[in-house]
């Protein structure tokens, strides 16, 4: 019997090639989309799950709250925490620290040389010896457990080792490492496998923490309880719950945390964050790398399910529309003894066959499009199907085949032989209402996605068009990655200032565009303590970026007293203090970070030091050359290339051993819009896909409608109807369905997008044009799809049409 079913299924497929192709194509697109999304979801949900004992591993995070302020949450923690936890709490099996080289609040770049080969690494850390007992990377060479005990030892990943040593052993080789803290030799004591792609952080070079003991400034920091300069990971002993450890932390802190000179003291707390939660759920300050977002998991899951549903709906629609030819077959089979269950099995089998075909094609399509998808999503997803994945794929195929095939199978098997055997049924009857509902659903989703894409693009355009209040055009940013080079900033400024096309230079602690560190400010003699974002600048910052002063003056050069004792704030600070005018802020005494005393001398107009996803934030600025991490150079727009070359030459004269590294500030801002841009592209892509799949279904249905009404068309033409009138007749009904779809899609899209826009402090209005355009696009595409079939039917010779049976 199975052979019989397969045979007839294959013959139907071949006999109705056109409609089979439409059906398979629609299902293929839907399944390919769904598979891509499933691969993405599997990848995202797999982060940090490859480590042994991953369910016992936690990152220790810190929350810090000044009196009367909102708490701040940090992914970093103080260096003293890990060793003290390990000593004091038997519940903790292992506790390790990972120290990045921070430059201006970001991991800096470290130069690693072997002979004449010098490479720069962003992913360089100092790590405690127990690191590999938590992050269980297999060793390729050496013993990972002991590799980081001694000072000046280093562990490389396999790919890093290959860069320097090729296939030679790296053990015992000596590398020269020039970080911002020191420039010295390190011995390679182990090589480990590369970090898996699906980890929340990656390293290329790991050096021993014990090295920091002999670096002066770092030795001090290693014993700090208040500088959150490292990442702390712990592994709990078997059977220990994180709640039990967290319950002991308040007592632990009381015992170990030294007092601060702030009254009332800040509230400091630590929490255990499950390792496997970091990638999708963690949005703390100073995350190691850009994390994913759980909301995208939900969005993508919904999109994947919706796309598949549309494809299934299409399939159902096309299958039931073909019933006429099958109705007679159903009647005959029932007459010769087929039970309804046997017919259902037959038709479900045919659906499954189409589905299997679609899955095979979908896998090919996924293989072809995966590189582009990876480039778009910024991930490295591979089409690797283990036994679980194959089972899952089989399950999905069965599910889709059964879901998509259920309605046609149940519908077709219901026919009564007496009804179908004598009459010449052509086209669809009885299921018309359901098919119309399906078309309306498909187009409602498509129109909704088109509207959504339009509004997202509007929001992007809006954000880009808004005045930032700061002139970021033609500004080259040069990172200064070495703490020891701050002293050269004067000569750097002079040297670069002499280049003809340079219009100005300035320095700051953090590049405009990135999150500012929140520093404690004591006010009114220490009676009030607040946290403000701090930007350390030089005298020319206000002028270079054209920041209007609304009260007071800029920090003036040439006055020693001024250099140490002058602060600028922005209007957001004035509002935060509830003052009626900016002038009232002038003269207020401030102690910054507990040691720098001075007064507010000027108030600048609010400007967006971060892109428009963020509102105005209270900001304080002052001079501190030791903290200059970035140099800004405003250049003339003409002869850019030549200017950049001159910049490089000047740089190399002053800093010959440091790489000449630069980016444009407006590009940096642009980077922050990328998430929204990606979202817009994604929604746009799915809108196009949904419309395509819906139109495939419409194409199939239009041909059946035309076939069904052949006789009617013949009669109308004999009675004098023109071709255009016939086309209108045939396309009107389907066009009406698209109109109904719009009526459903518009309010839903409006509510969803309104909710999405609430997340932006600066948001565009929702324009009616998006709705009208979305609806029109769907209508035009639907009409074009239908009118081809309608025209074909209208041009048939009436005699042919009337003879049609």
């Amino acid at each position: 019997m199975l052979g019989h079913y397969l045979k007839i299924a294959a013959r139907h497929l071949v006999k109705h090639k056109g409609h089979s192709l439409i059906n398979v194509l629609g299902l293929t697109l839907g399944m390919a989309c769904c598979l891509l999304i499933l691969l993405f979801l599997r990848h995202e949900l797999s982060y940090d799950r490859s480590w042994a004992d991953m369910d016992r591993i936690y990152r220790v995070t810190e929350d810090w709250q000044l009196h009367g302020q909102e708490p701040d949450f940090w992914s970093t923690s103080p260096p003293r925490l890990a060793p003290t936890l390990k000593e004091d709490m038997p519940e903790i099996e292992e506790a390790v620290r990972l120290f990045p080289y921070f430059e201006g609040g970001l991991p800096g770049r470290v130069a690693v040389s072997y002979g004449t080969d010098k490479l720069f690494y962003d992913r360089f850390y100092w790590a405690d010896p127990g690191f590999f007992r938590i992050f269980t990377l297999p060793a390729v060479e050496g013993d990972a457990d002991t590799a980081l005990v001694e000072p000046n030892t280093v562990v490389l990943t396999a790919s890093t080792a290959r860069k320097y040593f090729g296939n030679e052993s790296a053990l015992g080789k000596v590398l020269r490492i020039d970080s911002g803290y020191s420039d010295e030799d390190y011995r390679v004591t182990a090589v480990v496998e590369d970090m898996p792609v699906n980890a929340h952080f990656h390293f290329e070079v790991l050096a021993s923490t014990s090295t920091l003991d002999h670096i002066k400034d770092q030795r001090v920091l290693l014993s700090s309880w208040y500088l959150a300069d490292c990442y702390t990971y712990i592994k709990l002993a078997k059977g220990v719950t994180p709640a039990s450890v967290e319950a002991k932390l308040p007592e632990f802190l009381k015992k170990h945390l030294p007092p601060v000179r702030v009254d009332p003291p800040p509230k400091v707390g630590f929490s255990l964050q499950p390792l496997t939660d970091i990638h999708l759920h963690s949005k703390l300050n100073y995350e190691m790398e850009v994390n994913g977002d759980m909301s995208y998991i939900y969005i993508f899951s919904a999109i994947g399910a919706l796309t598949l549903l549309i494809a299934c709906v299409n399939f159902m629609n096309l299958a039931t529309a073909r019933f006429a030819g099958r109705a007679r077959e159903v009647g005959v089979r029932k007459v010769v003894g087929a039970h309804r269950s046997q017919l259902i099995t037959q038709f479900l089998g045919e659906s499954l066959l189409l589905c299997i075909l679609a899955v095979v094609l979908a896998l090919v399509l996924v293989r072809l499009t995966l590189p582009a998808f990876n480039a778009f999503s910024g991930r490295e997803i591979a089409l690797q199907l283990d036994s679980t994945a194959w089972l899952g794929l089989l399950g999905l195929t069965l599910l889709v085949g059964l879901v998509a095939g259920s309605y046609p199978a149940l519908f077709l098997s219901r026919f009564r032989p007496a009804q179908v055997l004598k009459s010449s049924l052509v086209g669809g009857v009885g299921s018309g209402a359901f098919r119309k509902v399906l078309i309306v659903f498909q187009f409602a989703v498509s129109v909704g996605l088109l509207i959504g894409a339009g509004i997202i693009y509007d929001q992007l355009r809006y954000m880009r068009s808004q005045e930032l209040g700061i002139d970021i055009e033609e500004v080259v940013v040069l990172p200064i990655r070495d703490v020891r080079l701050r002293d050269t900033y004067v000569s750097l400024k002079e040297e670069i200032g002499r280049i003809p096309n340079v219009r100005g230079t300035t320095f700051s602690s953090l590049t405009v565009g990135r999150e500012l560190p929140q520093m404690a400010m004591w006010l009114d003699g220490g009676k009030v303590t607040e946290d403000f974002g701090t930007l350390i600048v030089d005298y020319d910052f206000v002028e270079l970026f054209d920041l209007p002063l609304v009260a007071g003056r800029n920090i003036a050069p040439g006055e020693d007293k001024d250099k140490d004792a002058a602060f600028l704030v922005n209007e957001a600070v004035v509002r935060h203090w509830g003052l009626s005018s900016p002038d009232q802020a002038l003269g207020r005494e401030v102690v910054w970070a507990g040691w720098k005393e001075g007064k507010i001398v000027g108030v600048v107009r609010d400007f967006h030091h971060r892109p428009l996803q963020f509102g105005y934030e209270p900001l304080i600025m002052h001079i501190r050359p030791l903290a200059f991490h970035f140099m800004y150079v405003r250049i003339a727009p003409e002869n850019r290339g030549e200017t950049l070359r001159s910049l490089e030459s000047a740089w190399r004269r002053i800093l010959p051993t440091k790489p000449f590294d630069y980016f444009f500030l407006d590009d940096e801002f642009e980077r922050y819009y990328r998430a929204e841009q990606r979202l817009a592209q994604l929604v746009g892509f799915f809108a196009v896909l949904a419309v395509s799949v819906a139109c495939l279904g419409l194409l199939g249905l239009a041909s059946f409608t035309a076939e069904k009404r052949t006789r009617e068309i013949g009669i109308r033409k004999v009675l004098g109807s023109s071709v255009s009138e016939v086309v209108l007749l045939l396309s009107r009904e389907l066009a009406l369905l698209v109109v109904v779809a719009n009526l459903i899609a518009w309010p839903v899209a409006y509510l969803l997008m309104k909710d999405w826009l609430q997340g932006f402090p600066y948001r565009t209005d929702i324009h009616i044009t998006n709705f009208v355009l979305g609806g029109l696009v769907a209508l035009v595409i639907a009409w074009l799809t239908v009118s081809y079939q309608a025209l074909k039917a209208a041009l048939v010779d009436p005699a042919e049409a009337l003879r049609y049976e």
Partner: protein
Amino acid sequence: MIRIEKLEKVYAAAESVQTTALAGIDLEIRPGDFVSIMGPSGSGKSTLLNVLGLLDPPSAGEYFFEDQPTSRLSERRRTELRGRRMGFVFQNFNLVEELTVFENVELPLLYGRVPAAERRKRTEELLEQVGMLHRRDHFPSQLSGGQQQRVALCRAVAARPPLILADEPTGNLDSVQGDEVMALLKELNGQGSTIVMVTHSLDCARQSHRILNLLDGRLTEVSG
């Protein structure tokens, strides 16, 4: 074989409009009978045949098939009876387009779970009998009307049913083809099959044992 008592079939069209296709029919057909049912278009001939073939349940009355009342039979049981005890021949042949000649004839045996070897043997014998074995791998669209009807006849008798129901078997055929089909039907009747045939053709009807006339839903015996 067949006994009908006060059989009625009423069709309800839209909004309480009812059409009485059969109005209290009594009929008895014995095994081996060859019965023709004649009447004008719309008289209810096909309706009667559908009821006899368990394709359409009556609105009232009782239909006994092989002394078994059929009104309370489940759909499953009806299907079984149809598949094993009845064979159908239609005016428009109703062969499955996607199946070959061989596969069409084999179909009832497939549903009757007859083993493959037995199926093959029986099908080949039947096709040989009607001179269609050489076209076994052809599709219905490649055959003439007469050839299609011969194949349909083979299908109708493949499961060796005691009853054959033929609805205008020569309606779409020319006279030569029609004669061939009637000859086959008579041969089958001669072999013991009970045949109930609906026809417009008096010539065809005269080849049967009994002619019944159906007019306005009522049956009268004309000859036999």
